[in-house]
């Protein structure tokens, strides 16, 4: 669900800072989430994503800055009940059944006994674990535990859901299942802030991506916006020719000011801004140089390129 920009933010952070000794974990972070928006905090391990989530939940005290939930200061009594937290670890009682875990967290979140029982029924259906309701969670697969972990965070129907690496360590099938569950929440209007270091998760599960590195927000926007802001809209083109080049190819001026390719290699690589026009010209230039084209690859810029461009590091470098 796209965010309505005229609405006030449901969660707002202003100049938030947190240090642990000499390490500045969060450095002047400002961020606003609007109702129903899904935002991914993308960054390597140690970037400060989890610390930011902990600050929002009140589990870590801020050194500086302010936060508001639903327009109220975060210190307001009871305002944090608008938040739901799904921690990175499987924070469940392994020696309780699915039903007992769900019921306990519903009660801890302030639901009445009756409301808790109703919500447990909903959660079992939502997670697809109705048949495992009476089984001990400790014996579940990683994916099933993740689903229960997620359900326990939404038992009180929070308006804002904070997910810290919600799919870490699960198989692709379980991951897709969790994504579907998150989509249902988004459809129901829940605002989602998730941390991840997985590019596809950030792309699929968010309207907006906030790239975090070394405690700072270094970019904020939709994927297309981030691409345009950083690497631009150009496409990487790789052309394989029928034989090794005798020397660099002379190209039309609007494609490349300098000759392309190296003697002895059969691949020519370049960037073009307008695929619909320039790709044809590029292929024509290659043929004009006396070579036949045996293969063409066109790569759109990815978040990986964006991250590399912005930080100078691969995302998984940490």
């Amino acid at each position, binding site marked *: 669900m796209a965010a309505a920009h005229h609405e006030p933010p449901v969660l707002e952070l202003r100049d938030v800072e947190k240090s642990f000794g000499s390490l500045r974990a969060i450095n002047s972070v400002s961020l606003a989430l609007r109702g129903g928006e899904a935002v991914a905090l993308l960054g390597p391990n140690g970037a400060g994503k989890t610390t930011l989530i*902990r600050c929002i*939940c*009140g*589990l*870590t*005290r801020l050194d500086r800055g302010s936060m508001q939930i639903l327009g109220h200061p975060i210190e307001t009594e*009871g305002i*944090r*009940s608008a*938040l739901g*937290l799904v*921690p*990175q*670890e*499987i*924070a*469940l*009682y392994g*020696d*309780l*059944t699915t039903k*007992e875990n769900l019921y*306990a*967290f519903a*009660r*801890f*979140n*302030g639901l009445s006994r009756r409301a808790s029982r109703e919500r447990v029924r909903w959660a079992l259906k939502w997670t697809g674990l109705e048949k495992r309701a009476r089984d*001990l969670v400790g014996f579940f697969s990683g994916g099933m535990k993740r689903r229960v972990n997620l359900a*326990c*965070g939404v038992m*009180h129907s929070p308006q804002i859901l904070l997910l810290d690496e919600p799919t870490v360590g699960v198989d692709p099938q379980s991951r897709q299942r969790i994504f579907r569950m998150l989509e249902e929440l988004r459809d129901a209007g829940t605002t989602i802030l998730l941390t991840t270091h997985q590019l596809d998760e950030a792309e699929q599960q968010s309207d907006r991506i906030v790239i975090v590195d070394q405690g700072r927000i270094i970019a904020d926007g939709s994927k297309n916006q981030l691409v345009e802001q950083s690497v631009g809209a150009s496409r990487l083109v790789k052309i394989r020719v029928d034989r090794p080049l005798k020397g660099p190819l002379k190209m039309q001026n609007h494609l490349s000011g300098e000759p392309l390719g190296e003697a002895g290699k059969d691949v020519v690589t370049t960037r073009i801004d307008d695929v619909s026009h320039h790709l044809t010209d590029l292929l024509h230039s290659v043929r004009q140089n006396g070579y036949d084209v045996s293969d063409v690859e066109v790569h759109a810029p990815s978040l990986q390129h964006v991250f590399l461009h912005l930080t100078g590091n691969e995302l998984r470098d940490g």
Partner: protein
Amino acid sequence: MIWTVWQVNVRRLLHNPMELLLTFIVPIAFFSIFAVIFGGGVGIGTTPKIKVIALDQWDSEISRALVNDLTENQGLRFMRSPSETNLTTEEAKQLVRRGNVGMAMILKQYGDNVAVELLTDSSDQVAAQLVTAIVTESIVQAKVEQQQQSIRFAATSIPPGAAGPIPGNGAIANPVQVVDVIGEGKSNPVVSMYAAGIAVMFLLFGATGGGGALLEERENQTLERLLSTRLTMDQLLLGKWFYMTAIGTLQMLVMFAWAQLVFGVDLVGHFDGFLIMTLVTALAASAFGLFLATACRTRGQLSGISVVLVLTMSALGGSMVPRYVMSENLQQYGLCTFNAWALDGFDKVFWRELPVEALAPQLAVLLISGIVMLLAARILAIRWELD
């Protein structure tokens, strides 16, 4: 909220057969072993000073000489100077019943001789035998000296062959009579002592285990998750405290029910005193467990520290070996432990059969130390709320 914490912990326990076994069956097994081994009164090999008082009801030269002789004995410690002792026999019995003294000696005239009645507490199986031997030896010694003096006197003042019978020679076959003022008609006192001793030791182990659950929750981030809900740290600690107290109380109840069924300890007859002692001991032990857990960083650290602490406290406090066989210094050090105060309380309930009011010192010490530990745990837990 507190009720939910309580329920969660009960359900977790019910889902863990091994923990159930460790909580309820292992203590019974340990207690039974100790009760069988020591129930017969064997296995005691030290001779500490025995607290006594002497009532000289004859007040003669012979009886005074005997008391003087006894006061010099290294094995006895007179709690009041014999000359100051102006008690009735009933008052002396009360002192023994309350445990103020281990034994009262009542010196009486028996013809020309002195006879000694020992009012004992048979829970101390060493004291009665030891004091009987000491007193008998002193009487015989006094008699020998008396005879030697008579012979010397006769040799100097009476012509040879004119000696009559030796004065005071009307010997009694057994000059020392032992009267058990507490244990008559009761089951072996060592059994109830070991029931309490083992139960308190396992109560402490259970409490540190319960505290370990808190560290487990912290390590797997469940604690953070809980604190991100409406549950507060106060509610969490109180919920755990009540749960651990309830389980501890149940554990003690099961233990003493077994002791009644198999070893004849009168639980039903002393239920009021048992219940209040058990509740307060369990409250204190639970607070101790929470304090240890909040003071430790990891479960491994807690496990190591708790084993050493609980075993040391149990050894010093009398859970393993009765404190009355320990030296006086050790007995004093023992008062720094939960076990000693708890066992003294259970001793008053089951052995001395004192009214509940008499448990006030033990209850006060356990309750105050429990509350102090709980407050300390709360203060230590602040660091978990805001890292």
